[in-house]
């Protein structure tokens, strides 16, 4: 009966105004507090986009530049930087590899590449998006030139496709101006960071500033290594579970 009382007379318009103000306030509050549940670009890591829910790499099998098998097992208990590129690439790929080399030296300079933080090491991969031209021997001539510790990976075109696409790496061939075999490959130029459980945890978009990436990597590693490698559990999943329980 209270309803009838309020919904008539001057009360009604006052109530509408109050409700309006409250809705507006709620809107502002929601707008301010809303954060994408999956991706956030936090000030905490200025050069990185963090994936709050890490993207797992699917089962794959590639060949490293020495002809050895490389599978998701090779990602376990290591932080891994990945760049997708190709060896017939004049500007973007050498630039990215030199940047990765500078990240490497920044970390090596403070002796941080060895497995001292929770027994977790760091590795750098160059995965070709042009397996037709980038054979094992091509990669062997190319990748170690930039850093002898870097690992070049190639494999079946379908296999590389199935790894790259879920990680948001896109690429396509562009025919050469003079000869078909001189084609270029347009491709994403982000450096990806894979966590020690083989899941993509962060993306470094170009232009890359090695010193900043090294610094962000230190902080990301500090924040997430324990979560993924000591407790083993997916913290983000726990959060989602609690949230659902609260809703009920």
């Amino acid at each position, binding site marked *: 009966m209270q309803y009838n009382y309020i919904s008539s007379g001057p009360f009604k318009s006052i109530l509408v105004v109050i409700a309006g103000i409250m809705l507006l306030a709620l809107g502002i509050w929601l707008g301010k507090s809303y954060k994408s549940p999956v991706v956030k670009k936090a000030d905490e890591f200025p050069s990185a986009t963090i994936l709050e829910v890490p993207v797992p790499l699917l089962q794959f099998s590639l060949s490293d530049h020495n002809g050895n098998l490389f599978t998701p097992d090779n990602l376990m208990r290591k932080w891994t930087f990945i760049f997708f590129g190709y060896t017939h690439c*004049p500007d973007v790929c050498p630039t990215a590899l*030199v940047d990765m080399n500078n990240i490497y030296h920044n970390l090596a300079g403070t002796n941080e590449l060895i497995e001292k933080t929770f027994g977790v090491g760091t590795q750098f991969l160059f995965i070709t998006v042009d397996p037709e031209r980038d054979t094992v021997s091509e990669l062997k001539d190319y990748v170690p030139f930039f850093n002898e510790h870097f690992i070049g990976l190639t494999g079946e075109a379908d296999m590389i496709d199935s790894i790259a696409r879920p990680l948001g790496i896109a690429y396509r061939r562009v025919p050469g101006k003079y000869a078909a075999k*001189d084609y270029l490959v347009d491709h*994403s130029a982000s450096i990806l960071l894979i966590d020690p459980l083989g899941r993509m945890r962060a993306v470094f978009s*170009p232009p890359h500033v*090695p010193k900043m990436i090294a610094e962000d990597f230190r902080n990301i590693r500090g924040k997430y290594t324990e979560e993924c490698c000591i407790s083993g559990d997916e913290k983000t999943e726990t959060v989602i579970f609690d949230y659902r329980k609260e809703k009920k």
Partner: protein
Amino acid sequence: MKKSLSATLFFVLLHLVSSAYAHEQVSVDNAWVRSAPPGADVMAAYMILKNESEETRVLTKVSSSMFNRIEIHRTEMHEGIMKMIPQDSLPVPAGSSVTLEPGGLHLMLIGPKSVPKEGDEVDLNLKFSNGHSQRIKVPVRADNNKGGKMEEHGHH
């Protein structure tokens, strides 16, 4: 002794002549070629082109005795993908400069006769639309830093 004197004279004259032309042509600063693995098919050259004249100068063609072909390219990012866009020519407006740098404008050096090593020099011949052409020698470096491996990228 005589030889070195005439050499000195020659360079003094050369210097005088070249500074007389300095305001007519495009000057090239901080030119470098990114070193590449021995088997590389392509390389890139970067530099700053500065036009001190009072009219636009257009770079129309670049050639080198050390490469089969040289193209002017611009790397651009479209929806997260890096594309290389060939440029027919490269205008350098009067009184300003154009920077060729990693991830942006660059000269794509295609088909090296033999891949030059770090510390080598690459000769480039720059042709402009006013008929002027300019030969430059460009050092090969791993990176555009002079201070060694622990570089800082200060240009972003």
